[in-house]
């Protein structure tokens, strides 16, 4: 066996070990949650704990779907998707204006973007509920969409602005000379080139909207507008904490978002690139 082969093997072993450590660090708590979700109720809090379920059961998964989980998931999907689209649309318009136009108030706008990011959302809940109620938007999915968009817009503007800056301006100029309006140029020329950035920014909005609990539980009350995280919280009930369905629902809530991330991962990193470096 040659020395270089041994060297390569050793490197591979080191790499594998480090990767294994990272994976355990990241996934152990979630794995524990998943394994526990497969245990019957009386085994979940058993002492001393057993890592693997003795008699795996899907009863908690059956239970959450009997509790209408499909409807709440659909609600979450609708609200998250709408929030992502709305945020990207408004963010693209504003980001484009900042990237390509010099206008009075531009600097103020950029500073306010950062300022708005620094507001603790928890402090806005009570006043927001009041305003939303007055506008007739409390307890509606539309209200949630608007709020999520409002909270995530500053970050998205920032990211898209950076990415737009990194694009060559010549193509846009050509389109403008051909008689395209700025908005048309944005949608026909700039956005198609910005797919990776849109994906990256969209994913940040998605993570927020999909997982939000605090805003949704304050702003909604009826089952019609209930999102999945709020439904999950119902398992922390007045008559006790139901670990089984709680964990099962949590695991179910992880699956779609992980799937989307894995699917779009390539774009995700490259989408941040432009914004990251030239911002």
């Amino acid at each position, binding site marked *: 066996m040659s020395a270089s082969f041994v060297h390569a093997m050793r490197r591979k072993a080191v*790499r594998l070990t*480090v*990767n294994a450590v*990272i994976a355990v660090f*990241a*996934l152990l*708590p*979630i794995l*524990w*949650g998943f394994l526990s979700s497969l245990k019957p109720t009386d085994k979940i809090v058993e002492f*001393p*704990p057993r890592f693997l379920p003795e008699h795996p059961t899907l009863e908690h998964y059956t239970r959450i779907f009997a509790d209408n989980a499909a409807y709440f998931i659909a609600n979450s999907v609708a609200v998250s998707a709408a929030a992502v689209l709305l945020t990207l*649309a*408004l*963010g693209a*318009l*504003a980001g484009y*204006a*900042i990237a390509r*136009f010099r*206008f009075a108030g*531009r600097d103020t706008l950029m500073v*306010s973007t*950062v*300022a*708005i*990011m*620094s*507001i*603790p959302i*928890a*402090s806005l809940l*009570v*006043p*927001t509920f009041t305003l939303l109620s007055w506008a007739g938007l409390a307890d509606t999915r539309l209200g949630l969409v608007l709020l999520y968009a*409002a909270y995530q*817009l500053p970050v998205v503007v*920032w990211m898209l602005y950076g990415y737009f800056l990194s694009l060559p301006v010549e193509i846009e100029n050509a389109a403008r000379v051909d008689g395209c309006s*700025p*908005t048309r140029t944005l949608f026909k020329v700039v956005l198609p080139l910005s797919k990776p950035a849109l994906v990256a920014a969209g994913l940040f909005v998605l*993570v927020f909207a*999909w*997982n939000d*609990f605090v805003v949704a539980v304050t702003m909604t009350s009826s089952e019609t507008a209930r999102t999945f*995280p709020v439904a999950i919280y119902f398992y922390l009930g007045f008559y006790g904490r139901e670990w089984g369905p709680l964990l099962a629902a*949590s695991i179910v*809530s*992880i699956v779609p*978002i*992980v799937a989307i*991330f894995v699917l779009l*991962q390539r774009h*995700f*990193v490259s*989408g*941040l*690139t432009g914004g*990251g*470096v*030239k911002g």
Partner: protein
Amino acid sequence: METRRAEFWVPYRLIAPAVALEAALVIGPLLVGFWYSLHNVRFFQIRSFVGWDNYVRVVTSPEVLESLLATTIFAFFALILTFVLGFALALWLERDGRSATLMRAVVLVPYMIAMLVGSMLLKWLFSHEAGLSQLVLGPLGMGNTSILANPKSAMAALVFNAMWRDAAFAMIMLLAGLKSIPPSLHLAARVDGADAWMRFRRITLPLLRIPILITVVRLLIHFVNILTFPLILTGGGPGNATEVVVLRMFRLGFQDHILGPANALAILVFLANLLLVAMLLLLFRRAGRL
């Protein structure tokens, strides 16, 4: 002339929807919150105007001062450790290939799941009584420590929670920066005989200045405003050791039902955030000139 005028309004038309949304749903509530902060608000109803009294009450409250200390400790360690870990992960997983791609996805999982769920699972894992920390820490000879029952280790657990979830965020932001450094630069440096550390210092770090700034600013804002981690993982305890300022504010508003001081505190936290971000920007600008 006509087109000129049309052109003048274009950027304003583009930003109008975004500005309107922010004005209605962020600035509006912020102002209402400010209005609350000037009043005695009992049980969610305004009783009387009290001027700056709530602010005085808040800044002289020993609990609030304690919570500021907790926030400072948490944000400081969480920021440094999360950033370093995120940077290390980014460097480790920079090269393409199937295993790196898979590992990036693995690291991102804690970031993608709901913070509520993540912190609940970690609490379970850290619990000595539930026997899980014995399962995990036992082999390390730490099976007998109750992490969450001691103020210092509870704070460490909170910082761990931050690292666990947010290192992935730092990683992804920095990874994007790393990707945009032309490989030719590293190659040239290697030809010139620069070792790995030298290349990191002279090429990677300077070119990553902006991504680093963005990552640090966003992490800092996130950590200073943290609520879910302490609310779920430590409940602010033991002995208020992990009751950070936003948790204090949340409790004043939603559990004590005294919105005046809660909103006064919120406004102060907001101003402090702005100050911090401004300081960071200045710091980076100065560092950039050197």
